[in-house]
């Protein structure tokens, strides 16, 4: 799919919305108005937005905890996000789980769990279902660099390659797995080198360039849809905040942050669409106001929703 002007404005919109939601959540969390911690995708927004935007509505995405943008693109409303973060009774997890573990197969979203990267083999299974049913659909999953050290990653990617299922594998390489830098996660020159061992195409993409991510994912999705099997896409980016909101991340060299701040995906993209004449200060001001209002309202609405009742704990262990 090639991007129209409207598409490009939407890409920008979703990145902005993602950051606005996360910034608001950051404040909420620090005020003790959330259940559990907050893990943000600040600085990585181009990846979930670009990736999710490249999918068709009938495709399925299995996102990671930093992928606010992917949820928004799939149609999750900020009200739902805040309700989820607050553990409200009518939120996706009904207060039983927390964080961005929103699941909703009607919108093609697989809910993640904390154990890394357990959505990956699940996404493989979703893709396998598509293959068996001969549906022209793809599954896409995102995961961090650190997650590629796990056995779950390996087994799922290898099996996906062998079974040639329609799966797009998007690694958000933000340089760190909590306090552990890339150099202590893998010894290869580039993470994407792993693709060679799996016998699948590997792509190395600037993860702070939303259109580059979108293009790479579009291509991989097209290949998968055509029966060409999985692709591994390494999106290089940087985790611009601590691992979670309680991590000061003083193990990250300040120069590294400074260098990456220059490449902020939102600022860069704004410059690009402005240069292309698709955006200007007026539109920006309008967006700013719109986001502000949308977020405020969403928080309000979410906060008004009922909390779970003690009896709810017993409900739903098994499906009827």
């Amino acid at each position, binding site marked *: 799919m090639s991007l129209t002007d409207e598409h490009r404005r939407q890409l920008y919109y979703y990145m902005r919305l993602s950051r606005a939601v996360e910034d608001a959540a950051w404040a909420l969390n620090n005020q003790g108005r959330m259940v559990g911690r907050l893990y943000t995708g600040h600085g990585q927004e181009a990846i979930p937005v670009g990736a999710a935007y490249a999918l068709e509505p009938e495709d*399925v995405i299995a996102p990671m905890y930093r992928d606010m943008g992917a949820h928004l693109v799939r149609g999750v409303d900020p009200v739902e996000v805040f309700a989820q973060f607050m553990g409200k009774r009518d939120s*996706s*997890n*009904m207060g*039983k*789980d927390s964080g961005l*573990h*929103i*699941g*909703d*197969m009607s919108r093609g979203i*697989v*809910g993640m*769990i*904390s*154990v890394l990267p*357990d*959505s*990956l*083999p*699940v*996404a*493989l*299974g*979703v*893709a*396998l*279902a*598509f*293959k*068996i*049913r001969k549906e022209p659909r793809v*599954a896409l999953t995102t995961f961090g660099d650190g997650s590629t050290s796990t*056995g*779950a990653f390996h*087994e*799922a990617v*290898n*099996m996906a390659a*062998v*079974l040639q299922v329609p799966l797009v594998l998007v690694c958000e390489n933000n340089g760190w797995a909590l306090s552990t830098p890339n150099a202590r996660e893998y010894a290869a020159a580039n993470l994407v080198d792993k693709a060679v061992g799996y016998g699948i195409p590997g792509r190395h993409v600037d993860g702070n360039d939303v259109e580059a991510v979108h293009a790479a994912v579009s291509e991989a999705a097209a290949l998968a849809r055509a029966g060409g099997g999985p692709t591994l896409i390494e999106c290089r980016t940087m985790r611009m905040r601590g691992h979670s909101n309680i991590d000061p991340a003083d193990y990250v060299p300040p120069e590294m942050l400074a260098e990456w701040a220059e490449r902020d995906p939102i600022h860069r993209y704004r410059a690009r669409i402005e240069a292309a004449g698709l955006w200007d200060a007026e539109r920006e001001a309008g967006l700013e106001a719109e986001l502000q209002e949308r977020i405020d309202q969403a928080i309000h609405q979410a906060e008004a929703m009922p909390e779970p009742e003690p009896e709810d704990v017993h409900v*739903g*262990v*098994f*499906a*009827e």
Partner: protein
Amino acid sequence: MRHLTYYQAVREALWQALEADPRVFLLGEDIATYGGVYKVTEGLLERFGPDRVIDTPISENAIIGAATGAAIAGMRPIAEIQFADFIASGFDPLVNMTSTIHYRWGQPVPMVLRAPAGATWASAGPFHSQSMEAWFAQIPGLKVVMPATPADAKGLLTAAIRDPNPVIVLEQKYLYRRMTGPVPEGEHVVPIGEAQVAREGRDATIVAWGTMAFKSLQAAEILAAEGIDVEVVDLRSIVPWDRETVLASVAKTGRVAVVYEAHRTAGFGAEVAATIAEEAFQALDAPILRLAGLDTPIPAHPVLEAEYLPDEHKVVEAVRGLVGF
């Protein structure tokens, strides 16, 4: 009624499910071309083709994860783990992901995990003999069944396939080719969660499951010849388990032995015994007895394996003591 061997009954359940429901498919190691290490899935590839009978690499984690994903995408996957012992290699997705999906976001996960479990009395050794139902019973969200007859092998597997939840079927490899019995030809569903009073009796209750139900029935015959009349409750399902039937039997006999093949300590028999201690305290005329596998790995040499495993003679001896209390 026509008789089938246990493994044939399993195959028939698979066959009929594949016939009846296009959402059903199988995946696992060496299940297609090879027909499975116990030949349970033999012939299914030829009949249903490679899209529905899928050989996978040696990847227990991905097999379980993929079955989970296919289930939430509208399929009814039946995953085989070649030996139940190797579920340990795919333990995390099962206990953390698969088991919690419905609770956490309301999405049913209609999948089945089949695996040959238990000892063989034929030196299969520490890694091809384990019974790990207690692990799964500790995990909310997983159903667990352990059929002890060909009819139940078919009926419980069929129920498992139709259940909207993840169900683990621990097939008893000892019984695969040793036990033959009547099995209904057509649709046959044994509801998950219902125990079977496999033998009625007055003097004592034996609660057992899987191969131990089989052995306990043998013991009951020996005991009957001695004039001891035992009731044998075959639990059939471990999660959920049929407390009512067990408690009713204990109320009737006042004496109970819980017989299981897994390691004694923290085995599922502890749960059964603890529940009886809690719920039927006043009905008891004797301490609740547990007869189980030892707290050692399951040894290979026949002399050691026989010492490890409960069998009909050990059951007889235990029940004699129980009745004489």
